[in-house]
């Protein structure tokens, strides 16, 4: 780190102090305009085509996505699946068949278009079949293309691997940044920096997290800090008025560069919370009086109203709907869903995870559609890795699966070239092909950075600038090359 970061920090502190007074002015303005005034302004600009939001739904713990996207039919892929998944195989008749327009690309040129989604993913299957959702097959953290022989050291070459494969914390961080040993930024954070010209609202960060702090939204320069919302949005401070409010507000601003760095950070975060509060509250009231029945749509979609991921996505939908004319034009949301580390009881636990995920995605999709934002909001659903194809026990319900490498991700939204498989689905063979280690941990056939690059490009980073976010892309063929089969955005 260079010394001139100090001046960044100073300017950040000055920025906060400056914006505190702006916040007061803007809340006065909001009051005098009234909610209707804001509503009109937001509707007028809501039609603007120049708004794009990214919602990254991260499945924490390693989603067993070879039981989310499952082969069907009579071919060898299905028999490989049944042979190696053993007691944790899903039966064909439990799956929701997907209509692939053409044969999916499969490792080893097996060729098949017979796939289904998990029994609990009925709405996701419908979205796929309605060509709103794409499936990104066998992607994962990868520094450079590598073969099984190279991985096993049989070729004498030294190919760099993502550091500390199969470790949650490391692979999560890499999936949210780059497959490197040292971490300096997340790709969402860097994306926000490159898109800064679109995000002119000084009062709210373009980086909004529904799951606390995360590697994804860490910026390189440290000037844009993510803003963390509660699951249900913002909860105001209780009884914060009179002497209490004066006391706290004054002492928070009395913290200066002579104070302990951690106390400075604390007062910064408090400042960020108060500055953003009015804007977010008004976004919520705008959204709630917009006529979109958020609660109704979410409760109609099964468990979406009760689950954490459902609540978080509902809050995101409201933030998007209630945005004002001055809102940031390229916000980046981070939503996390926990509970995917199914070392034991994989079948029942994964099934309830899929139930929650399906309901939340369905409700979020319906809400965005209803509010007219489905074409502006790209949702990306990924996990640090899938799991071993082979189970760790022989009891169907009690057995689990362990940490794998590659996995299958999802993308949905009006801009997605849906109803297709991108990437290369693995052949599901053990001790050959893509497997390393004999348990069905597959080498990714596309790097997660290639997928993320497609998203960054849609958000507005030119292809020539994309390696500023993903330096490892230089080791791979361009994701925008059609033959590479990973660009899942509709050509406009």
């Amino acid at each position, binding site marked *: 780190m260079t010394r001139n970061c100090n001046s960044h920090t100073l300017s950040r502190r000055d920025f906060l102090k400056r914006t505190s007074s702006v916040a007061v002015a803007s809340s006065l303005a909001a009051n005098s305009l009234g909610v209707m005034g804001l509503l009109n302004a937001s509707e007028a600009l809501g039609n603007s085509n120049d708004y794009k939001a990214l919602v990254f739904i991260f499945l924490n713990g390693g989603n067993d996505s070879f039981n989310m996207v499952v082969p069907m039919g009579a071919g060898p892929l299905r028999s490989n699946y049944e042979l190696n998944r053993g007691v944790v195989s899903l039966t064909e008749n439990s799956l929701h068949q997907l209509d692939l327009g053409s044969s999916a690309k499969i490792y080893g040129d097996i060729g098949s278009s017979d796939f289904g989604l998990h029994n609990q993913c009925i709405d996701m299957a419908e979205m796929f079949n309605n060509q709103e959702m794409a499936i990104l097959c066998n992607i994962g953290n990868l520094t450079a293309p590598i073969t099984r022989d190279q991985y096993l050291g049989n070729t004498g070459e030294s190919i760099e691997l993502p550091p500390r494969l199969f470790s949650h914390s490391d692979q999560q961080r890499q999936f949210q940044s780059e497959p490197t040993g040292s971490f300096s930024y997340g790709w969402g954070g860097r994306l926000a920096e490159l898109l800064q010209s679109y995000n002119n609202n000084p009062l709210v960060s373009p980086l909004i997290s529904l799951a606390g702090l995360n590697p994804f939204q860490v910026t390189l320069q440290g000037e844009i800090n993510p803003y*963390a919302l509660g699951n249900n949005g913002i909860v105001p401070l209780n009884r914060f008025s009179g002497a209490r409010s004066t006391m706290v507000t004054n002492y928070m601003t009395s913290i200066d560069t*002579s*104070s302990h*760095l951690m106390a400075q950070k604390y007062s910064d975060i408090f400042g960020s919370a108060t500055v953003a509060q009015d804007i977010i509250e008004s976004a919520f009231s705008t959204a709630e009086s917009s006529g979109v029945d958020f609660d109704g749509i979410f409760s109609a979609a099964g468990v979406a109203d009760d689950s954490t991921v459902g609540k978080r996505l509902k809050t995101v939908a409201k933030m998007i709907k209630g945005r004002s004319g001055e809102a940031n034009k390229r916000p980046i949301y981070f939503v996390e869903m926990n509970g995917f*580390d199914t070392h034991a009881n994989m079948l029942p636990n994964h099934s309830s995870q899929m139930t929650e995920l399906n309901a939340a995605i369905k409700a979020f999709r319906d809400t965005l559609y209803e509010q007219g934002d489905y074409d502006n909001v790209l949702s990306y659903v990924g996990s640090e890795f899938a799991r071993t194809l082979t189970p*760790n026990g022989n009891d169907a319900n009690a057995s*689990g699966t362990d940490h794998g490498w590659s996995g299958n991700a999802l993308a949905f939204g009006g801009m997605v070239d849906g109803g297709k498989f991108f990437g290369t689905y693995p052949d599901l063979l053990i001790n050959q092909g893509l497997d390393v280690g004999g348990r069905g941990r597959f080498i990714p056939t596309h790097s997660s950075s290639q997928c993320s690059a497609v998203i960054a490009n849609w958000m507005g980073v030119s292809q020539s600038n994309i390696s500023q976010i993903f330096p490892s892309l230089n080791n791979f063929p361009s994701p925008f090359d059609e033959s590479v089969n990973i660009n899942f955005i509709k050509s406009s």
Partner: protein
Amino acid sequence: MRAYLGNISILIFLGFISSCGGGGGGGSSVDIPPTPPEPAPIISISVTQSQAYEKTQEVAELRIERSGTAKTLSISYSVEGSGDDSFGSASISDYELIYEDGSLVEDSINLSENQDSIIIHVRPKNDAQREIPETLTLTLNDGSSYDLGDEIVASITINEATNEISNNQLFLGTFKAQDSVPTNASGLLSFVLQGDNSKGTLTYTYANLGTQRTDQHIHLWPSGTIIHDIKDEDLQSSGNVSDYEWNIEPGGIFTNKQQMLDALFNGEFYINIHSAAFPGGEILAHLVFDASAEPPEQLPLTEQDVDIDIIRFLTQATFGATPESYSELRSLIDVEGSNREQVYELWIDQQFDIPETSMLALDNHTYDQFPSYNHAALKTESFWPIAVYANDQLRQRVTFALSEILVISRADGQVRNKPRGIGSYWDTLSSNAFGSYRKLIEDVTMHPMMGLYLSHLRNKKADAEAGTFPDENYAREVMQLFTFGLVHRNIDGSIILGEDNLPIATYSNETIQNMARVFTGLGLSYGVNSAEETIENTNFNRGFCGPANSTHHCWTQPMKFFPNQHDFDEKKLFIDDGQLVIPSSASQDSDQALMELGLVLDGLVSHQTTAPFIARRLIQRFVTSNPSSGYIERVAVAFGSDGDLRSTIKAILLDTEARSPSVLNSKTFGKFKEPLLQMTAVMRLLEANSKIALGAGDEDVGIVGTNYQFAHHFSDGATLMKLGSVVPVLGQEVLSAPSVFNFFSPDFSPTGELASQGLVAPELTLITESQIYAMFNGYDKFINSGYNSRRLPYPLDQSRVLLNTSRLDEVWNNKEGDETAKSTALIDYLDFYLNSGKLKQTDNQGTRTELIYALQGASCGPGGTTICERNSLAIYGTAVAPEFQIQQ
């Protein structure tokens, strides 16, 4: 400059030489009638004071004696410097030889008649030159009028000054990029030369070296000639250098120490650090003599310093300082605190001996008091009375720290539904808190709640036919999180690099697959029969031992091996000095499986990376987020190969880095307080309580007794306290982390200046915009209505947990003066106990001024259970103030 004389001896032959002519050779002789020869006197010399000091004009002393005749005698002598070229050698310009009366010794040493002995002083000449210690040797020479005794040579040393601290001379330097190499590394250096100029101690710290340090030298400027190699094996640690003794031995172009000293004072030396990426040197620092700087000195502590240190100590070692715990220590420590470390150690030893408080026993007592509730919903509520009132504060505080390393969590539904197992797991940590980490990790590994959480319970060996493999979950985390982590480290925590300059992984996925087989075959030891009686478990697959609210005995007892499900084949495990290989075993019983497990756990705990890895984590829990490498090393050494937790705890709490009052001036030392610990500190100071006593009740004041059999393990007046879920308020709660990675990563660094300085602040993970508001509202609720969770069968006013403000009222009422004086006293009181008095000390008085100002005019009438406005402002205002979130 003075001349260097090296080994050229200066012989001063004077007087009496004339007598040599007589009697010699028998040439032309004059006949003198022979007289009976008078026996010649025998002379000898000895040292009575060997050191002379130029600065203070202290002299060295020699004593010359004779026996025999009493006539006047002139003794011939010679003086010379050291024969060794590399040592200093005194020249005639450096000293004078004088008699006791101050007169100069001339060509010979003269004894007057009847004088048997004489003292010769060697007095250094006071010059402005800096000299190394010089040796002067005086030799008595042959003479005709005396014989030489056995002792005729005496050596003394002439020094610049004594080696008292006040004579130390300080050299300072700052590390910067060498030859403009692209590096962000920087650092500081000091060299303290002792008064006699013979040697000194070198200390330097540096950070942000791009790659591992490979070498470090002292060089001559500007040629770059190496003068001295600072060898790794001579250093206390492999990272920063502290108190490295350098005796300025001649090196490079220099042949003696005086040349070295002159070059040192001329600023001709620099130290550089070589790294893997910059083998020619990455950073360098010149040793610059600083005549103005005072040598470092341990200043005596003031009474206030000692008070602050006591509170700091209690904040580190307990769930919060109280007037009682402060008084106990204060009474033992003298005013200047000279015995404070002994007293702290005494206190720690006392804490080692206090009977252990059991969470499970208190859980069971709580379940009895609230029979209508699901036990799982009552959660780990026993934590509150334990943290706020238990006598074994240090043990419980260590337990809390361990619970954030050896994580199980109620966030997992299966764990959540076994409340007795959770209490038992806490007790497993606390019973081992003052034992060995080796035993602790064994008990944790065998605990069914850990088996459940990291799924090595009912973990079967591989079944080739069915195509199944052992569960890898525990195998991975026991290495990655519980013992040595991902990469090999030095004893001071620095990462060891391989030949490719990359960190060396401690294990591969193959290791994990082998390791997973170690943890196969573990099942529950007990179960229940249809009558819900506890039975021995014989069914490996059993996962049930009674419905909700039953004793769940099996979840409190260690698991056992089912040999037919354990893999007894050879296992090739991790590498430390060599690779740990567990051979395949012919005997296949549970004893064999246990022995194998023991060998693996031995290897895990004694792994050379485990001590620094766990040491850093523990220091972060108690003292500071960013311990120096020296601090990590000292604690790692105390941890040892078996994980001696008593020594480790003492090493953490008594280290100079933990105890030095100077850290209070630092903007980076210390840690952000965990919100949970901030809450317990407030609760302890303000005696949070319900009206349900653990012990006997008191009807007169509406306190109901529950006569808990272990009430004596708690302070008087301890009550049952159930707060309900505090995760939404604090972002944390014991044994409820979101994942096995705890509430925060030990390496989390918030963006901004902390990150740019390479500093971590793990606890700041919990401080987000939404969480900060939730925390504020949490204190608001405590003050406004108190906490209450599942009260029946008790009425609300008995079960509700409230803060008691009588101490605050006492401070207010006892303070003489106007409202400003009283407000100041009240804020200073809270500042003292909750914040080690830092607010009063700091230059920026903004927060203190606002707090004091807010209290003035705030009403405080007498009133029932509600907390009055003044106290409300004081508690809320201090609990959430920025300065109060920092533990230094």
